[in-house]
């Protein structure tokens, strides 16, 4: 039986075979519903409301009986009043008849704020493609050479540094006879590595363009660069359109494993996203997409495989072997990427299963392998990547921080989007909070237009640190229920929580709280990160960190002091803790603008030593020690003055 399903407020609709779940249908129709657990029925974030009644305009009758009965997972995730109001979880609810479904604001995946500007970096402009203008000897009855032979001879004669084995891309050959005559035997050839003619234009054309793209699990960031000046002309970004198939890399890999053509669909989706970005960038700069002659892609290992249409299944389980580690040069047309048809797509190398080209990009941007100081580089995304070392020795690992640090698995967690609480301070005496939401410049005031909707990653780090500093939670993460504040209370299940925002000050109509469960989720995530760093330091043979570099958007927004107070990473002088923004994107740009950086990338990927920290013999012991705030054993001299002020709980 096919049923008519309409989603509000987007108004998107489709005729659907009964039996599909609302989440599946929403994905098919391109409606982004939050599903951090990727439909495994664990997170309870995909709440939707089944509207009841006859809707004349839509020509359908919607009723709660048109969906499958309430499941156990829903009974746990939904409040009784929500069940009465016909709220259901989209992942659990099967379609049995015509439906009008309302997606509430809290369930909508909203546009994320992306940090597109990294720090200023020195670079040498030495791209992989160059343009050469030549005047050819016209064909005549005395000169029977082919057009290509003629072009090659002229190029080699005029530019002696070119590779003698000069060749021409097939697609360029197709238009070669016409182009050389159009230009009256004067043409500009675009050469890749001074060896392959990948584009040919009549007359003299100087401008050359390239695009660098960081394909993140959540966000795709793209930069259009001028290959002559090294300048970034335009930048743009979008949500990774694959997000509808799962929020994290594992759920995408699983989607590929469980669905026929799943891999092909995800591959196609991200290529379309890349093409959209390239055409938006080109349009904004007044150029043609075919004028883009070179591209560099960086991604995590899973996004690498999926974007290149390589089966990622085996990378999703031990021993996490990737299909290939070496860097790749692939013709744009082989991937269906619309730039110059003969253009090349360079993909930086993979380090190990969960340490991908994006981490290599961070390394060529930050260059720890060229430093005396021992750098700790932490790239916190959906998966955390850590590098430690200097020019003597460099180690890396990945750690399963889970998405808690980005706001998932947190009761009122959300992405960094308007309405998210991003900064929090607590008054140590009254225990009253002050907070800022994204979209408003100042501390919260009742008259402001954007009300609080949830808490994003930086806000969570802040509130946990503040609760610890004010004694609301102790070093083990336990609430002190002796404190007298209306904000400290027990929830319906008798579990402690702190009310950060009262219902009337929110846009969601309920109190925004920080629960004992949230504290535990952050403890697990921060312990994973801390232990990853610590084990690398131990392997390197030191307990000293000279500097900490926080890469990624998340690292740019978190309060460094709060991060150290909860023990997100080992003790370090706060003045030496720097946020560098999207260093992976910067590395991609560097590799686009300077071909030597591609060589450097392969070299550093070859020397770096990957450590699978989770299988280290004392991982569990170290992990348990790292659960406490800031740590059970390790000292934090640089913030000791803050720790000293924490009120001790009266027994």
């Amino acid at each position, binding site marked *: 039986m096919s049923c008519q399903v309409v989603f509000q407020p987007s108004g998107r609709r489709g005729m659907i075979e009964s039996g599909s779940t609302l989440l599946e249908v929403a994905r098919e129709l391109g409606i982004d519903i939050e599903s951090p657990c990727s439909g495994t029925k664990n997170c309870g974030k995909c709440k939707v409301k089944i509207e009841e009644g006859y809707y004349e305009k839509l020509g359908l009758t919607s009723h709660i009986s048109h969906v499958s009965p309430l499941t156990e*997972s829903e009974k746990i995730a939904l409040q009784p009043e929500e069940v009465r109001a016909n709220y259901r979880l989209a992942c659990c609810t099967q379609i049995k008849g015509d439906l009008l479904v309302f997606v509430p604001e809290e369930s909508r995946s909203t546009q994320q704020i992306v940090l597109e500007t990294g720090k200023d970096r020195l670079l040498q402009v030495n791209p992989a493609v160059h343009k050469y203008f030549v005047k050819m000897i016209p064909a005549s009855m005395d000169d029977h050479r082919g057009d290509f032979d003629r072009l090659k001879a002229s190029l080699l004669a005029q530019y002696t540094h070119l590779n003698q084995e000069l060749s021409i891309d097939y697609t360029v050959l197709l238009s070669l006879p016409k182009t050389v005559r159009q230009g009256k035997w004067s043409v500009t050839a675009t050469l890749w590595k001074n060896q392959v003619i990948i584009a040919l234009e009549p007359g003299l054309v100087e401008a050359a363009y390239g695009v660098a793209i960081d394909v993140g699990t959540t966000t795709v960031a793209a930069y259009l660069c001028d290959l002559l000046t090294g300048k970034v002309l335009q930048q743009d970004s979008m949500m990774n359109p694959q997000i509808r198939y799962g929020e994290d890399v*594992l759920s995408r890999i699983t989607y590929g494993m469980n669905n026929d053509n799943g891999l092909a669909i995800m591959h196609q989706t991200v290529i379309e996203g890349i093409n959209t970005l390239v055409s938006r960038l080109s349009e904004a700069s007044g150029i043609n997409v075919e004028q883009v002659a070179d591209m560099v892609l960086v991604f995590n290992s899973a996004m690498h495989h999926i974007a290149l249409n390589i089966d990622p299944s085996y990378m999703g389980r031990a021993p996490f072997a990737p299909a290939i580690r070496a860097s790749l040069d692939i013709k744009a047309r082989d991937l269906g990427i619309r730039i110059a048809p003969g253009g090349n797509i360079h993909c930086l190398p993979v380090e190990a299963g969960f340490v991908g080209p994006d981490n290599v990009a961070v390394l060529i941007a930050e260059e720890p392998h060229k430093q005396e100081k021992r750098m700790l580089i932490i790239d916190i995304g959906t998966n955390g990547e850590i590098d430690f070392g200097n020019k003597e020795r460099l180690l890396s690992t990945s750690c399963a921080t889970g998405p808690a640090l980005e706001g998932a698995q947190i009761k009122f967690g959300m992405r960094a989007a308007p309405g998210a609480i991003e900064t929090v301070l607590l008054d140590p005496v009254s225990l009253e909070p002050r907070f800022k939401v994204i979209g408003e410049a100042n501390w919260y005031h009742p008259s402001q237009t954007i009300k609080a909707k949830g808490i994003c990653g930086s806000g969570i780090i802040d509130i946990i640190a503040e609760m610890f500093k004010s004694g609301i939670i102790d070093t*083990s*993460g336990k609430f002190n229920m002796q404190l007298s504040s209306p904000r400290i209370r027990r929830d319906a299940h008798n579990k402690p929580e702190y009310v950060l925002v009262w219902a009337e000050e929110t846009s969601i109509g309920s109190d925004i709280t920080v629960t004992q*469960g949230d504290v*535990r989720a952050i403890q697990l995530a921060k312990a994973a990160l801390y232990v990853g760093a610590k084990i690398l330091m131990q392997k390197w043979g030191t307990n000293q960190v000279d500097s900490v570099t926080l890469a990624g958007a998340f690292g740019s927004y978190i309060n460094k002091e709060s991060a150290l107070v909860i023990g997100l990473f080992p003790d370090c002088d706060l003045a030496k803790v720097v946020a560098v923004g999207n260093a992976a994107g910067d590395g991609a740009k560097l590799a686009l603008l300077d071909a030597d950086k591609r060589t450097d990338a392969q070299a550093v990927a070859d020397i770096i030593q990957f450590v699978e920290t989770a299988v280290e013999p004392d991982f569990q012991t170290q992990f348990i020690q790292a659960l406490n705030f800031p740590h059970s054993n390790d000292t934090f001299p640089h913030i000791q003055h803050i720790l000293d002020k924490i009120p001790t709980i009266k027994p």
Partner: protein
Amino acid sequence: MEKQQILAKLQKAVEEMENDLAEEAANEAVAAGINPQEAISEGLAKGMQTLSQLFDDGDVFVPQLLLAAEAFEAAVDIITAAMSAEEKSQASQGKVLIHTVQGDIHDIGKNIVKTMLAASGFEIIDLGRDVAVEEVVKQAIEHKVDIIAGSALMTTTMPAQRDIISVLKEEGVRDQFKVMYGGAPVSQEWIEKIGADAYGETATEAIAKAIALMAEKRGA
């Protein structure tokens, strides 16, 4: 010292996660000639129940739970030192084969469940992590275990749980074992879908489920 006082001391030692106190009380129990099973069930196990409840409520966390289990085990070692293997086996709640599934290397969750099961009187065989599907079945048959317990921490490794059930059926031994699974991405729906017997959302729930499965098995 009175028997009741010793039992209370055993309980308190676990609740307060005090190894030394647990050992002291255990030695007193032995000296007073208290039945080992009674010392465990009426003393130590009660302490563990308190801790489990506090863990469920969020009042204590993983480190405290493990400390309590250490105190429990230290006392059990002393109390049961004089018992023969046969006596120990008779006192056992059941034999559990525990593992982290093939392709998965994260095992802290599994280790917590293991510790809690041991502290609840189960005999445990731990195969470690990334254990091949066939190996799990082979070992289960060899050791004649009552329960196969496995955890998967990634959506990509969950299928191994289904594969274990399939191999058990192929070998014609499915009805000899109770199979229970856990892990962050695992759910009751998944358990039902693949035909396993029980799902533990938390460590304490896993223990309760294991006890219920044993009651079912021994009753059957």
